[in-house]
C-alpha cells in the first residue's frame, strides 16, 4: 500500500489520490486561516469550559432543589417554571452536547484505522467517488498545533511555504519527540538549537502531510502524531543539508526514526490491549470450573501443571509481540478440528510466546469455538521425570484426568525431553504419551525444535500421524527489532534503567554474531537483561544503557576486546608492523604484506561475515611462518592462549572430518569447536595445510567465504572474529631458486602459482585467502640477527636470576657461521645456542662459577667459550 505523490498533481493543498480516495489537506497557508484556527480552538476551549461549568452548576442546583423538596415534601419543583430549574435544564442539554462531541471525536480517531483495516469501505467509497479524507483532521492536537505554529512563523518571515526548520523545531517541542530523541541518545534542546542555526530547505515540504499519512498507515496508527510528521520531515531532507549530515554523523537514519516511532506506538497499543484484556477477562469464570459446568476438577493434574489462562489473568505471563500471524494459523488448525498440534521452531524464536499469546486469547474467549470455555494447562515435565519409577503411572493418570475434565487444552513444551525418559515397560515416555493421546478425547499443543523433531519425534511411532505440524514463521529483522524493543521496555520497568535504541540494535547484532544456543529475539533479550542487571543505578535516577554497555558485556562473555567489537583498534594496527619487525628477522616484505592486509580487512572495507583476515604463508621451513602467527596472537590478540594451532598432517586420514567437526550424539566437542566456542575471537593456525585431506580443504573453502561452519551436531559456529593463517611448505624449492636467481617477489609468486601451488591446492581455495604471503629464505646476515635476538632472550633469563651476562660479537659470528643452513632456516640457530652456549652456562652455574650478582661477558676462543668476569 503506497501513495503516489506526483508533483504535478500535488500543488500545495490540492487533493491527492489514494487508492480511489481523495486526500486533501485543509490547513490553508495564510495568516487569517491560522488565526481562525487559533480562534476556533479558543472558542472550543471556552465553550467546553462553559458547558462543564453549566453541568456542575446544574447538578448543584438539582441537589439543592432535591434537599428543599425533601424538606418541604413537595416533589413537583421541576414542573413548576422557576429560575432555579434553568441551570439544571441547561446542564442536561450541555451534557448531551458534550457526549455527542466526544462520540464524534472517537469516530474521527478511528477513521484512519478504518481506512487501513477495512478494504470494503475503501472500495465502496471509491465506487461512489465521493470519499474525501482531510489529512489535517487526522492530525492529533499536538501535530495540528505544531503545524500551525510553524506556518505562522514562516509567514512572519514571508516564506512561500512553511519552512522545514520551523516545522522541525515546533515538532521537537512535543513529548513524543522528546521521548524519541532520548531513545536515540540526542538532546532535543540541542537539536532545536542546531536546526535554528542551520537552515534546512526542502522542495518537498508541501508533500509532508501526505508522507506522514503514509507513515501513519504503515505503523497502523489511529492519527497522525508529531512523531510521524517528524519521520516525514526526515524522509524529505535533502542529502546535503546540515541536519541530514548531522544525522548521518550520528548514524541515525530515517529507518531508525521510524523504528523508534514503531516502538513508542506499539507500547501504546499494548496498553490499550491490556485494558481490553482486563475488561474481557471478566467473562471467564475463576477456578477449575467452566461456564458450561461440564468440567471436572483436576487435583492430580494441578500438581504437575501450570494453568496458563489463570496466569494470564493474574498478569504473570510475559507480553510478546510479532506472533499474530502464527496465532491466526493456530486458530485455523483448531477450527479445522485438529486436536493435536506440534509447534516447530528454534529455541528462543517465540514458541513459548505463541503459547502465552494463546493463553491471553483463551482467557478473553477471542478464540474459535473448539477452544472456547477451556483452560490452557502446561504440563511441567520435570515433575514427571523426577519420579522415574512412577513416571508411566503419573503420565497416564494426568492424561486421563485432563481428558475427563473436558475443558483442558494441554501444552507440553520441549516434548523431546519425554523421548529420553524410559518407562518400566521399556517404552519411552513420548511413545506412551502418543499412544495415550490416540485413545483419549483431548486437545494438546506440543513444542520442539526442528533438530529434535528429526532426531526423536519423527522416529516415534504414530507421532507424525496424530500431530499436525505448525512451523513458526521466521521473524523479519524489523519484527525482531520491535520485539526486542518491547521486551526492553519491560526490562526497564524491573531494573530502573533506560535502553537507548542503539543499545538494542547492538544487542541484536552482537548476539546474532557471537552468541549461540537460543534464537532471536530471545538471544538479544537475554543480553539486554544481563546488561540491565549488571548496570545497577547508584541513586534513584534510572541508568542509561548505551551500545557501549552491551559491547562491554559481550566482551566479558566472549573474551573479545571491546575495541575489536566496536572496530576501534586503529592504534594497535598502526604499530603492529613495528612490533612484528622486532621479533621476526629477515621477513620485512612478508610482515608488510600481513600488516597491510590486516589493516585493509579491519578498516571496515571487508565483509563483516568473513573471518577477520586469512593468510596463506608459503616458504621454506624455519623462516618464521609460525613465529609470525605466534607474535600476532601475542600482539594483536593480547595473549597466546587465543592461538589454536592445528597440525594439519593429523587431518590426512579418513577420520579427518570427525577429528575436526566431531560426531553426532557425542557429548564432547573436538579441539577446534571447543576453542571456537570459548574464544570466538582467536587466531587459527593451520600448520602444513597442504597435508590435510581434500575434504578439509573444501570445508575451508566455505569457512573462508562465509566465516562459519556447521558442526556434526548441527550447531552453527561463527568464525567472523577469527584470524586464519595456513602455512605450507609447498613450492619451497621454487622460492629458494627464485631468490637465489635474484627474481623479485612478484615474479616468484607468479611462478609459484603456475607451478607448485596449483598442484597442491584448488585454485578456488587459493583465491579465498585474503593474501598469499611468501617468506624468503634466510641469509647469513639474518642468521646473525636471529642469533642476537635469541641471545637477548637468554640474557633476560639470566637477568631474572640476578646474573648480568653479555655476549661478544665473536660469539654471534660463531653461531652464524656454524648454525647457518639455507635449507633449515632459523631452527639450527636455536639448536646451536642450546647445545653450545646454554650448556656452557649450565656448567658454570652448577660449578658455582656463576652466581647471583655476577657480571661478565662470554667470548669464544680456539679453546671454546670463556667467561670473563667483571668487577
Amino acid at each position: 500500500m503506497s501513495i503516489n505523490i506526483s508533483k504535478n498533481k500535488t500543488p500545495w493543498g490540492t487533493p491527492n489520490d489514494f487508492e480511489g480516495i481523495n486526500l486533501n489537506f485543509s490547513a490553508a497557508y495564510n495568516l487569517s486561516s491560522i488565526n481562525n484556527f487559533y480562534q476556533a480552538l479558543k472558542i472550543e476551549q471556552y465553550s467546553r469550559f462553559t458547558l462543564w461549568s453549566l453541568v456542575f452548576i446544574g447538578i448543584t442546583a438539582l441537589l439543592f432543589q432535591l434537599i428543599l423538596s425533601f424538606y418541604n415534601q413537595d416533589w413537583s419543583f421541576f414542573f413548576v417554571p422557576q429560575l432555579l430549574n434553568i441551570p439544571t435544564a441547561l446542564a442536561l442539554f450541555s451534557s448531551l452536547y458534550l457526549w455527542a462531541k466526544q462520540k464524534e471525536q472517537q469516530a474521527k480517531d478511528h477513521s484512519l484505522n478504518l481506512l487501513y483495516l477495512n478494504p470494503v469501505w475503501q472500495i465502496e467509497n471509491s465506487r461512489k467517488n465521493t470519499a474525501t479524507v482531510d489529512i489535517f483532521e487526522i492530525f492529533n492536537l499536538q501535530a495540528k498545533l505544531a503545524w500551525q505554529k510553524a506556518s505562522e512563523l514562516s509567514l512572519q518571515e514571508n516564506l512561500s511555504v512553511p519552512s522545514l526548520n520551523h516545522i522541525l523545531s515546533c515538532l521537537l517541542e512535543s513529548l513524543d519527540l522528546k521521548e524519541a530523541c532520548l531513545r536515540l541518545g540526542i538532546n532535543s534542546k540541542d537539536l532545536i538549537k542546531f536546526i535554528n542555526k542551520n537552515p534546512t530547505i526542502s522542495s518537498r515540504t508541501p508533500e509532508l502531510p501526505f508522507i506522514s499519512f503514509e507513515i501513519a498507515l504503515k505503523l497502523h496508527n489511529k492519527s497522525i502524531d508529531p512523531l510521524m510528521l517528524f519521520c516525514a520531515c526526515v524522509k524529505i531532507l535533502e542529502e546535503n543539508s546540515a541536519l541530514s549530515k548531522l544525522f548521518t554523523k550520528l548514524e541515525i537514519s530515517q529507518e531508525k526514526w521510524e523504528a523508534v516511532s514503531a516502538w513508542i506506538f506499539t507500547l501504546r497499543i499494548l496498553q490499550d490491549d491490556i485494558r481490553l484484556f482486563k475488561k474481557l477477562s471478566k467473562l471467564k469464570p475463576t477456578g477449575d470450573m467452566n461456564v458450561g459446568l461440564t468440567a471436572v476438577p483436576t487435583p492430580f493434574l494441578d500438581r504437575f501443571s501450570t494453568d496458563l489462562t489463570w496466569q494470564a489473568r493474574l498478569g504473570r505471563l510475559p507480553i510478546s509481540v510479532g506472533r499474530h500471524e502464527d496465532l491466526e494459523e493456530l486458530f485455523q488448525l483448531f477450527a479445522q478440528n485438529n486436536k493435536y498440534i506440534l509447534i516447530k521452531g528454534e529455541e528462543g524464536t517465540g514458541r513459548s510466546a505463541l503459547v502465552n499469546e494463546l493463553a491471553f486469547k483463551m482467557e478473553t474467549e477471542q478464540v474459535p469455538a473448539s477452544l472456547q470455555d477451556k483452560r490452557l494447562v502446561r504440563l511441567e515435565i520435570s515433575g514427571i521425570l523426577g519420579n522415574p519409577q512412577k513416571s508411566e503411572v503419573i503420565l497416564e493418570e494426568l492424561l486421563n484426568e485432563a481428558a475427563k475434565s473436558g475443558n483442558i487444552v494441554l501444552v507440553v513444551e520441549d516434548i523431546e525431553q519425554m523421548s529420553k525418559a524410559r518407562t518400566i515397560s521399556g517404552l519411552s515416555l513420548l511413545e506412551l504419551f502418543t499412544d495415550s493421546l490416540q485413545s483419549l478425547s483431548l486437545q494438546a499443543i506440543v513444542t520442539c525444535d526442528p533438530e529434535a523433531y528429526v532426531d526423536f519425534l519423527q522416529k516415534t511411532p504414530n507421532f507424525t500421524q496424530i500431530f499436525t505440524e505448525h512451523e513458526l514463521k521466521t521473524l523479519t529483522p524489523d519484527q525482531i527489532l520491535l520485539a526486542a524493543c518491547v521486551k526492553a521496555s519491560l526490562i526497564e520497568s524491573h531494573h530502573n534503567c533506560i535502553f537507548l535504541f542503539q543499545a538494542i540494535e547492538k544487542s541484536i547484532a552482537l548476539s546474532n554474531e557471537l552468541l549461540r544456543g537460543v534464537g532471536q529475539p530471545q538471544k538479544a533479550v537475554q543480553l539486554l537483561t544481563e546488561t540491565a542487571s549488571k548496570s545497577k543505578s547508584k541513586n534513584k535516577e534510572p541508568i542509561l544503557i548505551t551500545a557501549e554497555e552491551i559491547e562491554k558485556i559481550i566482551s566479558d562473555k566472549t573474551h573479545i576486546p571491546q575495541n575489536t567489537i566496536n572496530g576501534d583498534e586503529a592504534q594497535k594496527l598502526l604499530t603492529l608492523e613495528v612490533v612484528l619487525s622486532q621479533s621476526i628477522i629477515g621477513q620485512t616484505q612478508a610482515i608488510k604484506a600481513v600488516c597491510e592486509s590486516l589493516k585493509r580487512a579491519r578498516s571496515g572495507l571487508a565483509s563483516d561475515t568473513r573471518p577477520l583476515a586469512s593468510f596463506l604463508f608459503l616458504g621454506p621451513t624455519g623462516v618464521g611462518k609460525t613465529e609470525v602467527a605466534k607474535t600476532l596472537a601475542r600482539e594483536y590478540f593480547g595473549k597466546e592462549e587465543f592461538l589454536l594451532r592445528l597440525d594439519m598432517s593429523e587431518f590426512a586420514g579418513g577420520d579427518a572430518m570427525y577429528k575436526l567437526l566431531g560426531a553426532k550424539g557425542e557429548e564432547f566437542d573436538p579441539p577446534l569447536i571447543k576453542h571456537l566456542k570459548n574464544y570466538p575471537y582467536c587466531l587459527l593456525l593451520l600448520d602444513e595445510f597442504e597435508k590435510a585431506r581434500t575434504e578439509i580443504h573444501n570445508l575451508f573453502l566455505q569457512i573462508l567465504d562465509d566465516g562459519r561452519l556447521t558442526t556434526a551436531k548441527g550447531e552453527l559456529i561463527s568464525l567472523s572474529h577469527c584470524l586464519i593463517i595456513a602455512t605450507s611448505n609447498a613450492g619451497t624449492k621454487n622460492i629458494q631458486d627464485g631468490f637465489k636467481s635474484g627474481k623479485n617477489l612478484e615474479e616468484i609468486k607468479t611462478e609459484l602459482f603456475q607451478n607448485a601451488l596449483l598442484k597442491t591446492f584448488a585454485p578456488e581455495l587459493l583465491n579465498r585467502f585474503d593474501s598469499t604471503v611468501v617468506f624468503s629464505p634466510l641469509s647469513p646476515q639474518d642468521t646473525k640477527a636471529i642469533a642476537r635476538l635469541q641471545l637477548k632472550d637468554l640474557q633476560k633469563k639470566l637477568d631474572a636470576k640476578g646474573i648480568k651476562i653479555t655476549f661478544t660479537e665473536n660469539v654471534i659470528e660463531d653461531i652464524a657461521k656454524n648454525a647457518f643452513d639455507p635449507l633449515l632456516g632459523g631452527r639450527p640457530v636455536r639448536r646451536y645456542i642450546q647445545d653450545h652456549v646454554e650448556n656452557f652456562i649450565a656448567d658454570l652455574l652448577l660449578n658455582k662459577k656463576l652466581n647471583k650478582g655476577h657480571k661478565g661477558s662470554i667470548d669464544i676462543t680456539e679453546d671454546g667459550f670463556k667467561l670473563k668476569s667483571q668487577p
Partner: protein
Amino acid sequence: MQNFPLNILSLPVWWYSIGLKIALKNAEQNFSFGVKKSGIILFARHIGEPLYGDYTRTGRIVSFFLRLALTFFKLASISLRGMIILIFLLSYLVILPFSILILVWQFLPAK
C-alpha cells in the same frame, strides 16, 4: 466545536442520525457482552451433558433439571439486561426533546 452556534443548531440532526447509530451500536455491544458474560450460548451447547462429568443415570436426571433451572435464570438475567438497555435506548430517543422542552418550560409564566 469550532462553530459552536452551528453545532448547537445541528445537534438534533446529528442526534437522530449518527448519534442514534452509535447508541444502537453501543446497545448491541452491551447486550452481546451480557450474553457472553452469562455464557448462555456455551451453556446451551452443553444442555445434554451432565454437570461436573457425572455420567450416572441419577446424575444425568439431576443435571438436566438443574440445567433447565439455570438456563431459565440466565435467560431472565439477559432479559433484564435487554430491558434496561431498551429503557436506555428509549431514553436516548426522548431525552433531547425533553431537555429542550424542560428548558423552554422554565421560561413559561407560572400558573
